[in-house]
C-alpha cells in the first residue's frame, strides 16, 4: 500500500478521534488550535493545486480566504444563516472574483503573474478595509452564525469541529482526484511546458483559469468556516503576509504531494505554538529558519518525514 495513504489514514484517524481524546487531556484550547491548523490546511491544499500542480505562483491567495469570509459575514449580517445558502453565496462570490482577477492575471505568467496576484490581493485587502458598514479596518464581530436546517449544531463545539474536518477531508480527497484526472494532467502538462501543451491542442489559459477559480472557491470555503469558528472577520485575513504563510506551508510540506499541505499546516501551527511559548519574539527565529531551509534543505519537510513517499511532483 502507498505510504502516503497510510500517513493520511493515521492523520485523519487521529483527527477523527480527537474530540474524544481531548477531554481526557482536558484542553479546549488544543481543539481550537487543531481547527486553526485544519483551516490553514484547506486553504493550503487549494493553493497547492495552483502552485504544485499548476506551476502558477500566486502571492494573493489569502485574499480569497478574505473574500469568502466577508461574503459569509455580510450575508450573515443581512439575515442569511442557512449554511447551504452561505456556501452557495461564498462559492459564487469567490468564483466570480477569481474569474475577473484570473482573466487579467493569466494574461501573463511567471514573475509577472506573481506580482499581479500580489497586487490584486492587496487591492482586495484595501477594498475590505474600506467596507465601513462592516467594520472597516477593525473587522466585525458576528452575533449570528450559520445554522443547518435551523439548528445551531455548527456553532462551536464538536459540530463545528467535524464540519471543518469533513471539509478538510473532502478538499484533500477532491484535490487529489483533480490532480490525477484528465483536467489535472493537462494542468501539469501546462506547468511542465505550456507551449507543448498548447500544441497538443489544449488552450492553456482556459485550463489555468478553471484551476484558479477552483482554488479560489476552496479558499473561500475555508474563509466561511473561519468566520464560523472565530465569530469574527477582519481584513487581516487577506493580507499578503497570509498568502506568504500559505506558500510556506505548502513548500514546507512538499509541493504536489498527497499530504504535504496538511503536514505543513500542522507543522507551522505547532512551530508557532512551541516557539511562541518559549520566546515571544519567535519570528526572530522563524524568519532565519525559512532562509536556511531554502538555502540548505530543499524539498521541504515531506522529504525529511517520508524520504520515499514524496516524489516531488506526483504524476
Amino acid at each position: 500500500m502507498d505510504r502516503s495513504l497510510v500517513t493520511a489514514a493515521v492523520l485523519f484517524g487521529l483527527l477523527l478521534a480527537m474530540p474524544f481524546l481531548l477531554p481526557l487531556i482536558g484542553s479546549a484550547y488544543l481543539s481550537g488550535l487543531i481547527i486553526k491548523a485544519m483551516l490553514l490546511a484547506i486553504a493550503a491544499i487549494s493553493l497547492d493545486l495552483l502552485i504544485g500542480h499548476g506551476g502558477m505562483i500566486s502571492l494573493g491567495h489569502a485574499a480569497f480566504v478574505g473574500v469568502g469570509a466577508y461574503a459569509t459575514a455580510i450575508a450573515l449580517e443581512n439575515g442569511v444563516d442557512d449554511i447551504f445558502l452561505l456556501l452557495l453565496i461564498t462559492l459564487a462570490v469567490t468564483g466570480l472574483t477569481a474569474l475577473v482577477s484570473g482573466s487579467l492575471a493569466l494574461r501573463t505568467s511567471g514573475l509577472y503573474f506573481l506580482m499581479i496576484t500580489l497586487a490584486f490581493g492587496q487591492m482586495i485587502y484595501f477594498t475590505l478595509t474600506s467596507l465601513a458598514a462592516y467594520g472597516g479596518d477593525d473587522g466585525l464581530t458576528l452575533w449570528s452564525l450559520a445554522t443547518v436546517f435551523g439548528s445551531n449544531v455548527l456553532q462551536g463545539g464538536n459540530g463545528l469541529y467535524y464540519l471543518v474536518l469533513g471539509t478538510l477531508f473532502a478538499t484533500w480527497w477532491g484535490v487529489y482526484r483533480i490532480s490525477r484526472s484528465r483536467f489535472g494532467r493537462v494542468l501539469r502538462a501546462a506547468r511542465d511546458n505550456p507551449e507543448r501543451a498548447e500544441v497538443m491542442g489544449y488552450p492553456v489559459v482556459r485550463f489555468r483559469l478553471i484551476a484558479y477559480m477552483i482554488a479560489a472557491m476552496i479558499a473561500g470555503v475555508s474563509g466561511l468556516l473561519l468566520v464560523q469558528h472565530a465569530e469574527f472577520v477582519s481584513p487581516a485575513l487577506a493580507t499578503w503576509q497570509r498568502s506568504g504563510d500559505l506558500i510556506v506551508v505548502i513548500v514546507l510540506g512538499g509541493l504536489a504531494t498527497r499530504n504535504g499541505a496538511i503536514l505543513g499546516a500542522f507543522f507551522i501551527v505547532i512551530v508557532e505554538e512551541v516557539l511562541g511559548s518559549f520566546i515571544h519574539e519567535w519570528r526572530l527565529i522563524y524568519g532565519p529558519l525559512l532562509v536556511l531551509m531554502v538555502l540548505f534543505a530543499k524539498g521541504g519537510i515531506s522529504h525529511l518525514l517520508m524520504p520515499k513517499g514524496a516524489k516531488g511532483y506526483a504524476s
Partner: protein
Amino acid sequence: MSTLEIRKLNKSFGALTVSRDISISIGEGQCHALIGPNGAGKTTLIHQISGVLRPDSGHILLDGQDITQMSISRRVQAGLGRTFQITSVLPSFTALENTAIAAQAKAGSSLRFFRDASRETALNEIALSTLQRVGLADRAAIPAADLSHGELRLLELAISLAGKPKFLLLDEPMAGLGRSESVALVALLSELRGSLPMLLVEHDMDAIFQLADTVSLLVDGQVVARGTPDEVRADAAARAAYLGENAA
C-alpha cells in the same frame, strides 16, 4: 483537394518582409519539403502555419477549413500536428504519459475532474501503439527527462501522431541526430508518408531526396523554385542561392 493550402501569404515586420506572396498546396499523401538558406523565412512561415504569428494577408486552409485566424490549440484540434525544431516534450511525464495526454486531446473532453486519467485504458492503448510505431514501446515508463536526445526526437513525433493529425508539420526533425538515428527516422517517416501528408523543413538534403514528393525553395521570403527534388536541384536559381555550396 489539397490537405494544406497556403494562399498568397504575406507577412512583414516593419520594413523587413519575411513572407512574400507565398502559395503552397500539399495534397493527400504528399510530402512537401521546404528548403532555403538561413533567414529565408522558413521559421516565420512555420510560425504562421502553426499559429504563433498571424499573416498580414493571405489564407491557410487545412482540409478545406480556413484556420488563418485560429489559436494555436484550435489548429491542433482541427488536425494540424507539428514537431518542434528544438525538442519540446513534458519532462516530468513518462513517454507513455506524454503520448497519452496528446491522445486525450482528441478523445472527448478534458474537463473531467475525478476519474484517474492514468488508468484510462483506451488512452493508454493509443499511446502505447503510437510508441510502438516509432519504436519507443520499451521506453514507455521512462520519464522524458531521462530519455536520450534521439529518443526525444522520436517521442516528439509520437506526441504529434497520438493527436491523430490530418497533416503533419515537421520542423527539422533530423536536427541533432547521429547518422544511424537519421536513417532510422527517415525510414519511419517514409512509412508514414503515404497515409499522412506533411510539410518538411529540413537541412538534411539526403532526407529530402528520400522523403519529399515536391520541394519549394524559399529565398528572401519568396518561393523562387518549386518542383520535384530533382527539378529543384537542377534549377539554376537554386544552385546559386542555396545548393551551390552543398553541391561543391
